[in-house]
């Protein structure tokens, strides 16, 4: 199996298309960092307009930790497309190219090929996420410095001490990897059904958009299925940045408000990954390779 994984990784990273995602992420992040460096104070002022009426906020609010949070909020909605570019092409792209029949006449079972390709796609996803983490977190810390994380949510504000932030980002990125791997596995499933490249990529993105709309619409009819949709859980990396308070409304250092939500989301995402990959294996094993 490791031969398959190393070959697939070699093919992925030899292909020019792979680097589009890395370039796109770098460009997006740098543009946002540049914009916030030049004009971040007005953005921060807008976010804090309700607070500034009553309170004076002293300190480096627009620091690297907050910038990273803003970047993740924006990018983790769009990075799934970049993941799908590769994942949704892993099987159907080979079928389209005609090379799938070359691979399936080697002394490895189709199950081994599917699992090996999925592992390679997952490694690509993780590498992409590490690249995003490096640029969004460490480069932001270098450009904007660090301080407490002053998070302005929709209905309340969370002030997390500087020493209490970094481990939360580690947790958030680990969680984000599960979210992105769910997209990888969905793209993979689409790829196992089709024989061309574009269909699975478009299909994967359409599915994510569709389920995201169902997850975010507050219509009672959809509330039954919402807990089971992976898109409902994909953004729960944010739960790492909410903190418990005691009876005196004092934030408790090192705590997460709703750790159960994180655990539930991880379980749901993992189950989706297993389901999608298993379905890919079954479909690929049963299909006739006519391409």
């Amino acid at each position, binding site marked *: 199996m490791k031969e398959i994984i190393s070959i697939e990784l070699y093919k992925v990273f030899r292909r020019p298309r792979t680097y589009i995602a890395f370039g796109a992420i770098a460009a997006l992040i740098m543009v946002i960092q540049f914009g916030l460096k030049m004009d971040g104070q007005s953005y921060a002022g807008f*976010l804090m307009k*309700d*607070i*500034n*009426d*009553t*309170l*004076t*906020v*002293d*300190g*480096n*609010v627009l620091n690297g930790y907050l910038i990273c949070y803003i970047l993740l*909020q*924006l990018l983790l*909605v769009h990075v799934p497309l970049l993941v799908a570019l590769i994942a949704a092409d892993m099987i159907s792209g080979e079928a389209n190219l005609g090379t799938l029949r070359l691979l399936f006449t080697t002394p490895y079972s189709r199950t081994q090929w599917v699992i090996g390709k999925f592992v390679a796609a997952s490694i690509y996803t993780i590498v992409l996420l590490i690249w995003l983490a490096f640029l969004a977190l460490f480069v932001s810390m270098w450009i904007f410095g660090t*301080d*407490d994380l*002053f998070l*302005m*949510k*929709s*209905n*309340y*504000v*969370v*002030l997390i*001490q*500087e020493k209490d932030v970094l481990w939360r980002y580690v947790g958030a990125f680990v969680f984000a990897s599960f979210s992105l791997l769910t997209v990888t596995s969905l793209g993979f499933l689409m790829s196992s059904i089709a024989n061309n490249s574009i269909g699975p990529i478009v299909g994967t993105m359409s599915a994510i958009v569709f389920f995201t709309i169902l*997850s*975010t619409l*507050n219509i009672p009819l959809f509330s039954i299925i*919402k807990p089971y949709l992976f898109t*409902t859980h994909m*953004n729960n990396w*944010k739960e790492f940045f*909410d*903190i418990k*308070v005691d009876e*005196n*409304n*004092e*934030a*408790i*250092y090192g705590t997460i408000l709703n750790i159960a939500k994180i655990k539930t989301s991880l379980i749901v995402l993992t189950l989706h990954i297993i389901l999608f990959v298993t379905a890919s294996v079954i479909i690929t094993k049963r299909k006739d390779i006519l391409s």
Partner: protein
Amino acid sequence: MYKKPTLLIKYGLLTILFFLNSNLQAQVDPLIERVSQKLGLVNDYVAEGVMKTDVSFIKASLGKVKVYFKKPNLLKVKKEGGISLLPKGGVSVTINSLLNTKQYIALPAGTQEYNGKTLRVIKLVPTDDKLDWVISTLWIDPTDALVYKTFTTTKENGSYEITMEYGSYANLGLPSKIIFAFNTKDYKLPNGITLEFGDEDPTSKQKALKNKKGRIEITYTNYVINKGVSNTMF
């Protein structure tokens, strides 16, 4: 938020109260004088303390702070690393900054029981328009000339209630604990900005509706008094 009284009402009040209470001034001025004298012994200080923020829509932990003061009314609260939240304008309306200007008229307003003490209530009305406060009420213990509570209405930043507790630095009028209480506005950012879609946290919503007051407490652990403080700290 309390309505800011207009200048017209303020001057009218001044005139009426001056004529009605000119005799009483001779009686309450000594108390204010005693308080001022006590506070006047302090030219500057650097105090270490712990600050607690208790605002319904803010989750923050205790933070170590340093408070810098220099006569007559320079005051700065600095969090030791990290972001600090302070009531806007409220920090500047401490007793030192109120009394050190000497530009006010003191008007007696009776007495009131407070935490087992009988405190004199004195209202201060500023005589200089450039000051940023409109009226301030002080609750003073006549036995030790310590101010236990103030309620100040500012021109721009609403009203603040400040309560004080005293300990080992009572002889210099320096509190061991100071609590700023103020009214807060509703806090809300659109979901399109925060990208938070889906179910809102029900507990946060209840809290937001329940309590529109905020408190910031500073518990002082140490004062370094009259050792000199550079103006650059402010």
